[in-house]
């Protein structure tokens, strides 16, 4: 699989189909990989593929430094590919400006990432080329897809409030969660605006609550569950629990799953008289 990836990357660079390949390279330890940006065909040996390729590389589609490298081919797992669909739908990239190099995946992380336990996209749903043997994607029921919320939803309202207060207390406001998020693409985040100051920048109870809740709300009906926010949090806050809960509500209310079909209309920015809320009518 690694050889096939390298060969494909080399081909794309040699033929000038793309200027750069966003992929995975060896990391600081054998249990870690890191993003690499290959611009020369002779460097494709830096690419690797293994169970530690947890990153969602589509976040580099938003960063000015990596955009400058020219047209990218981007290596995506099934979950990451959903981001590309959302980014296209939200007019952040044009379909023809990115070469999607899909890889089939049986799960990443050690221990296995939570998202992988309920994976229904072992084979990406969008790609220009696919590396790895095609795996039939499982159809999972609504309940199966949101099973990780079962324990959380059993908590009382008071219990949930106390749980999040305790979690947010740990937040150090490093903003790794939003900087890593491929769908947090605003050039200037609301937390950086101070006239008016919508969100207290201080890492105290009020500031941390307003930041974390606002971040999650901005992803409602958009988050594709790559879990990157949670992976990178140095304070070990289970941020994806919030995202997942909001995704569940969005799906329940709008019958919409972000990133699954490029023809679907977006939940949050599409008017539909059939929506079940009165205010849209």
């Amino acid at each position, binding site marked *: 699989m690694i050889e096939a990836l390298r060969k494909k990357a080399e081909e794309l660079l040699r033929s000038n189909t793309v200027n750069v390949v966003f992929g995975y390279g060896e990391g600081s330890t054998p249990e870690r990989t890191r993003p690499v940006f290959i611009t020369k065909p002779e460097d494709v040996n830096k690419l690797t593929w293994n169970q530690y390729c947890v990153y969602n590389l589509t976040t580099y589609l938003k*960063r000015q*430094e990596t955009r400058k490298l020219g047209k990218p081919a981007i290596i995506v797992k099934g979950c990451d590919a959903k981001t590309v669909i959302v980014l296209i739908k939200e007019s952040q990239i044009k379909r023809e400006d990115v070469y999607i190099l899909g890889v089939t995946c049986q799960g990443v992380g050690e221990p296995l990432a939570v998202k992988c336990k309920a994976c229904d996209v072992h084979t990406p749903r969008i790609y220009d080329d696919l590396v790895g043997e095609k795996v039939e994607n499982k159809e999972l029921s609504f309940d199966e897809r949101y099973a990780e919320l079962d324990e959380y939803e059993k908590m009382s309202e008071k219990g949930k409030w106390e749980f999040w207060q305790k979690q947010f207390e740990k937040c*150090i406001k490093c903003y790794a969660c939003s*900087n890593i998020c491929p769908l947090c693409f605003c050039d200037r985040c609301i937390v950086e605006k*101070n006239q008016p100051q919508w969100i207290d920048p*201080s890492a105290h109870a009020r500031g941390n609550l307003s930041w974390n809740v606002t971040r999650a709300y901005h992803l409602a009906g958009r988050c594709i569950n790559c879990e990157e926010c949670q992976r*990178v949090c*140095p304070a070990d806050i289970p941020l994806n629990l919030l995202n997942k809960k909001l995704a569940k509500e969005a799906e329940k209310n709008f019958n919409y799953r972000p990133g699954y079909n490029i023809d679907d209309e977006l939940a949050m920015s599409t008017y539909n008289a059939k929506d079940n809320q009165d205010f849209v009518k």
Partner: protein
Amino acid sequence: MEKRLNKKDFDNFITSLRGKGYKTIAPKKDNNLIVLDEVQGGGEISLDHVITNNSIKEFFFPKTEKVLSYRMEKNNVQIEEPEDFAVKSVIFGSRPCDAFSLPVMDKVFNWDCSDKFWVQRREAVTIVTIACDKCDTYCFCTSVGLAPDAKGGSDVLFTKISGDDYVVETVTEKGESLIKEFEGVFSDPLSEASDRQVATVEKKFEIEKVKSWLDENFVHTVWTDFSLKCIGCGACTFVCPTCHCFDIVDECTMTKGDRVKNWDGCQFKMFTMHTSGHNPRSTQGERWRQRIMHKFKYYVEKFDSILCVGCGRCSRVCPADMNISEMLEIIATEASQPGNKE
């Protein structure tokens, strides 16, 4: 002064400290993290880790703190300053790298003005360090002039010997008087010298070469190349025991408010953004260069100290696996190969 203490008596030490009104802070487990935090007894203390996830700095320079409150009435402004922020405490079981960050940071917090929050807390807190008996691939204290059993910044140093015994050495007068105050807790040192269990931390680069290369290479492709994967968050600076940048904000209504000091970091795009919209460090490469230059050139020139203790936390938490010792190895190698300059 040298004493001895067995692990089973750590609880006695902590309880005795608390009995005399000391706040006790030590490494303890919190889900997947090991954090320096307040402990009520020795049973809570974690010893089986390389280093705590949080650094020692937050006990002197917290992530957020009110520096004053104000109230405006007509032409009159009333200011209220916080008191009692320096609590008599013992930090027990911090690592030698963390302890060493304190004298390094003393220099900047006592520079053109004396930061009373830092200074008073430094006086109120006694540092009892435990030497590292293990390390990991991210540790590089020996490359920046320290050691897993370095004494600088500690008031007392514990070093593991056979069994669960620790040699207890006082380093400063403050440490000496602390151990004297609780003399009953400790045993006498063994008559024969015993093997100390201290980690072997591999030296990764020659720090002198780093400085001389930085002097010549403000402009170099390595800055952009290395930082391409950087996502521009502040995780590295916030977990760093020596990063000390902060921002001041007013949290206020029309007539009253709090002036608050918050951690800030040079890796954020907004950090150097001018009101005009111009940003003198407009790319991540420039921001990454700043982090390295500040630690290994500017601070050295200004205060004669390296602003890095080799704890490796920045590399452990980096969402994109940016590894600072790898950067420094690249620089030291470049320095050994003259002619590579851009």
